[in-house]
């Protein structure tokens, strides 16, 4: 979620749902949507080692069928590319003499490219391919996208409120010198921050002041924020300037909350944010680096995962419509990771990171890798129009 990607750039991108007809056998299909003025039916492709003969160079929007025959001596592949060389459909492993069929859903009119790739390498033998408008309107999912954004912005807003509320309490405890109570509240107060971390981090100037670790702040900048108070509470004891640091934290959080509530997001940012939260876990939490004095890393871990899931939940109708198998896998892997985390719960919170054995850390890491690999596929699905 680093830099805001232009929302409309995505909507325009010609990324279409490709139905690769692998195997599938009896392609006695009715040449579905290919029926149109330009002479319907399957488009035949003769792919040799040096040529790629496509029987028609245009089709009406809808389901288009390509029947690809390898007349050469090398293994061949056939591709249909959209804008920016994005693969819209492909058939691979067409051995010499073999014929395979590709059904591809072309909802967006425009210019595409066909390509044969003898030997499976290189850019292939390309030709332009035009898709014309057809009667059938493309099923827009603009509404569910908009709903996803609205839903997630509500989530961000409620988390921002909670962050301000908890930080206010935490700051008061620090300033009152109530060390034990402040330590109790510390991981909880940070929770909302961790849930919306990619949004918060997008305000580059405030993030290091609020959440910077001692060794990652820029030269010449003071060590402030949550982690400075963490060090005071757990390691050095409260310092003469702890109260001042606490005041500054509250001021910074107040500002970031105001900004977060106004932030305008797009669906792709939600998807990327979901992944970014898991990346936070992979690089900072599962390694025990984030909370080096309090060792409350598992709290952050849990909150990052909760935030990641909130973004997926907002996108759920979109994913359910476009790629239900991926959504099912994402859900199953959130559940599996949740189970691993649950094993380390203690009271209302978690055991210290330092209590984990290397084998337990590996179990968490393995479940996290599996989930991240699936969630990483989500932006591509969301960006497809």
């Amino acid at each position, binding site marked *: 979620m680093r830099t805001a990607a232009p929302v409309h750039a995505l909507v325009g*991108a010609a990324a279409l749902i490709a139905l690769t007809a692998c195997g599938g056998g009896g392609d006695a299909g009715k040449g579905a949507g290919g029926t149109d003025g330009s002479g319907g039916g399957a488009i035949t492709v003769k792919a040799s080692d040096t040529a790629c003969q496509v029987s028609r160079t245009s089709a009406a929007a809808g389901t288009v069928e390509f029947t690809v025959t390898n007349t050469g*001596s*090398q293994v061949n592949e056939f*591709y249909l590319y959209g804008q920016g*060389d994005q693969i819209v459909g*492909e058939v691979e492993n067409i051995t010499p003499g073999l014929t395979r069929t590709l059904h591809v859903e072309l909802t967006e009119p425009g210019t595409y490219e066909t390509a044969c790739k003898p030997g499976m390498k290189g850019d292939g033998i390309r030709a332009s391919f035009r898709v014309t408008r057809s009667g059938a309107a493309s099923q827009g999912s603009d509404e569910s996208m908009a709903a996803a954004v609205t839903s997630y912005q509500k989530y961000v807003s409620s988390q921002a409120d909670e962050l301000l509320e908890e930080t206010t309490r935490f700051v008061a405890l620090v300033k009152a010198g109530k060390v034990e109570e402040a330590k109790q509240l510390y991981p909880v107060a940070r929770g909302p921050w961790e849930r919306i971390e990619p949004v918060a981090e997008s305000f580059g100037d405030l993030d290091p002041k609020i959440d910077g670790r001692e060794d990652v702040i820029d030269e010449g900048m003071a060590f402030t924020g949550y982690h400075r108070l963490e060090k005071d509470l757990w390691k050095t004891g409260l310092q003469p300037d702890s109260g001042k640091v606490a005041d500054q934290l509250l001021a910074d959080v107040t500002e970031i909350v105001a900004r977060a509530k106004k932030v305008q997001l797009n669906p792709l940012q939600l998807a990327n944010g979901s992944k970014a939260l898991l990346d936070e876990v992979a690089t900072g939490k599962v390694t025990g680096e984030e909370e080096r004095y309090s060792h409350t890393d598992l709290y952050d871990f849990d909150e990052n995962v909760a935030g990641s899931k909130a973004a997926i939940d907002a996108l759920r109708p979109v994913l359910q419509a476009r790629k239900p198998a991926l959504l099912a896998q994402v859900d199953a892997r959130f559940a599996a990771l949740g189970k691993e985390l649950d094993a380390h719960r203690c009271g209302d919170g978690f055991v210290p990171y330092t209590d984990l054995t290397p084998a337990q850390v590996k179990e968490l890491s393995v479940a996290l890798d599996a989930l991240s690999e699936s969630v990483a596929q989500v*932006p591509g699905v969301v960006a497809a129009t």
Partner: protein
Amino acid sequence: MTSEVPGTAPAEPTSRGVSRRRLLGVGTGAALAGVVAGVGGTYAAQRAEGAASPSPVPGLDAPVPFRGTHQAGVVTPAQDRLHFVALDVTTKDRGQLVELLKAWTRAAERMTAGAEAAPGGVDGAGPYGVPQDTGEAYGLPASGLTITIGFGPSLFDDRFGLADRRPAALADLPAFRGDDLDPARCGGDICLQACANDPQVAVHAIRNLVRLGFGTVSVRWSQLGFGRTSSTSTSQQTPRNMFGFKDGTNNLKAEDPGELEQHVWVQPEDVTGTTGWLAGGSYLVARRIRMHIEVWDRTNLQEQEEVFGRTKGEGAPLGQTKEFDTVDLAKPGADGQPAIPVDAHIRLASSKNLHGVKILRRGYNFTDGTDGVGHLDAGLFFIAFCRDAQQQFVPMQRALAAKDALNEYIEHNGSAVFACPPGVAAGEHWGQALFA
């Protein structure tokens, strides 16, 4: 490391001044690769063209057929580089594991042909999609890449209903005297061995297969090998290990199919009934052998040669003059004692000393950083293929562990055994017969 090593005896005048790459290229071309890997490969038809693609060293860059009677990467002329990984299966879902084996087969076949792990894998997913190929081998030739899969004994527990499919010989190795095994470098449910003439290609292959496996398998341990220590074809020179010696001159070679059937490939009569899936396969034994190279380097030449039983420069058996001279275990030296000492490495590992037992060695040199006390963590990642790990490797290692003079300078700190199924025919996937 072979003919270019300064101080190497002037044994092969024809090879001096010729780069190793050129030497390796000889005989590793399409014709031999085809012979070795058998027939029926999906990409067989492409082979001739592939080998003819522009390349300064034909052969080294060329692809090795993925499909065939036997898996590639066993008797394939040993490539220069290795990336080996042992994996644990993390799912309990048998169907999910089978799906991974299918996905792996597809990606492995593509990568061994020099293609991306998935069509358009590097940049075809569009700006918002995640590339399905990690990209570091993009544009590189196939580089002789082979990817060999094996199944460890632990896969045959109660998780996947495979218990009755475990051949008796697929069992953890017994403890050997002097072992210093690190559990983090031992065992594994599945292994993948990627060998190539370009390290980037080998690492890319493992990385992409591991990536496909997230959620189904996780890495247990992994080993890089930077240089082959074995020759598995008469077309190859015998390379040297980290002690500077040629070890494995009398290795089994691809050109002797009778010996391979006898010593390397599991025969149908070895695995009857529910274990029949392994017929035509082989057992892979992996041992990570740390070499105390600093201590070795302070050892005088005579002792070094007596430890191995060969001369250092030429690699001739002691008492002989040329590398490939017959090893004569009885021949006395100047002092009347056997020229090859009773505790010499080649005597103990000799088939004559082991009632005819032979194995196919396919190991790699490694240097994995430092041991933290001022030494290089260097050694040999020993890989052997055999028809029966228990009947071949175990007696050999027992003999070596008991009295090999080399033991003073080495220790085994990793160990694993895997059953590598036979090759995949057209349309088949890895593990198909096992999970049928």
